[in-house]
């Protein structure tokens, strides 16, 4: 990356935007005080170097460590911190960030930089090709996975099969924490989204298919970042329970109707 990205970063870090951001990047964070700053640094440098106005939104999900203090102390002019006093789940945090965002393009990315921000352009190309939802994928042809533990390989393989069988969603990797939306798709889908936990990705993609959004899956690099705050086995169990919940909710009619009405059915968003 040319040195201009460093100067662009310094301008972004010190001067509040005067225009609407073209891009919003949302990072959900739960007890990420050790990992969040390098991730913010990498994302801010890269995104600033793209020469488009952009904003960064960090949504703290009720961390019990010093995540909030650490992020606040950075004093970055175009970073918004959304706080919650309680741990509500990744789905709730991402929803809050995506609905608070102002960008025409909205990306959410995990706090561990497991999908490097340099993959952003690949997704953007697909969005600009006319897709509404672009999914970073570790399963699509051309993806690269590094250092994934055997347990996580087994769990993710099993879950992919379950999703194939039960949902018939065209997306092979529903759970990669690197997804891009148009503003319109994000506003609609995240108002309808009801699951607060890790299965929210699946729910959002299910809804995207149900309501006719154009979805694409783009291969990305992915590195199993050490120090994950996630219990993979527990998440897998919860995921299976949520599969049933989504199906039952759909049959019950939870997702029909305008999305602005759907918003009133979900739990209150993370406060800021």
């Amino acid at each position, binding site marked *: *990356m040319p040195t201009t990205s460093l100067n662009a970063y310094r301008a972004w870090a010190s001067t509040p935007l005067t225009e609407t951001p073209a891009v919003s990047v949302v990072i959900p964070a739960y007890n990420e005080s050790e990992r969040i700053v*390098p991730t913010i640094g990498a994302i801010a*440098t890269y995104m600033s*170097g793209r020469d488009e106005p952009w904003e960064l939104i960090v949504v703290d999900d009720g961390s019990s460590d010093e995540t909030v203090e650490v992020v606040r102390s950075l004093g970055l002019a175009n970073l918004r911190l959304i706080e919650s006093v309680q741990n509500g789940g990744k789905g709730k945090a991402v929803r809050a960030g995506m609905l608070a965002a102002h960008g025409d393009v909205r990306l959410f990315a995990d706090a561990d930089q497991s999908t490097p921000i340099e993959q952003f352009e690949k997704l953007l190309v697909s969005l600009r090709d006319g897709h509404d939802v672009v999914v970073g994928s570790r399963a699509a042809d051309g993806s690269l996975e590094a250092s994934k533990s055997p347990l996580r390989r087994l769990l993710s393989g099993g879950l992919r099969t379950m999703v194939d069988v039960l949902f018939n969603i065209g997306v092979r990797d529903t759970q990669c924490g690197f997804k891009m939306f148009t503003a319109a798709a994000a506003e609609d889908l995240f108002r309808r989204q009801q699951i607060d936990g890790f299965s929210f990705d699946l729910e959002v993609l299910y809804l995207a298919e149900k309501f006719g959004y154009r979805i694409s899956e783009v291969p990305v690099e992915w*590195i199993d970042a050490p120090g994950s705050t996630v219990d993979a086995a527990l998440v897998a169990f919860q995921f299976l329970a949520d599969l049933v919940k989504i199906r039952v909710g759909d049959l019950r009619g939870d997702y029909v109707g305008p999305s602005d009405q759907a918003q009133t059915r979900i739990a209150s968003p993370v406060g800021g």
Partner: protein
Amino acid sequence: MPTEESSGCQQMSSQAKGLHMPITSETDGPNATCVIDGRFDAHETPSFRSFVDEFHASRPGEALRLRVVLARTTFIDSSGLAELVRAMKQLTAGGGGGGIVLVEPADPVLVILELTRLSTMFEIEEAATLTIDTE
């Protein structure tokens, strides 16, 4: 004679090599150079630590200088930062001019060092062509 070695990639699958680049190192008496390409995270820190420990033990009592080239480092996480701090403490402990220099850190690395307030702790040798706003 300088010796060169490549480490940090042996345990990766061939598929993963595109993501985890090798750490290459070279020693020449009391001076050493280590080049870190790609990500410097907990997957790479063991090989870096091994090299630093071996280098440190190779010339007891001497002031040792380590240059860590970060020009093609795309990301450094908290474990990588901690490893650099450890190396600095190890090499400066003996005094006499020993220490560590971070050479031409790539933009994201420089920003991460600044945000973590570690940029003032390290001697940083920036590329001659860099023109950086210092406000």
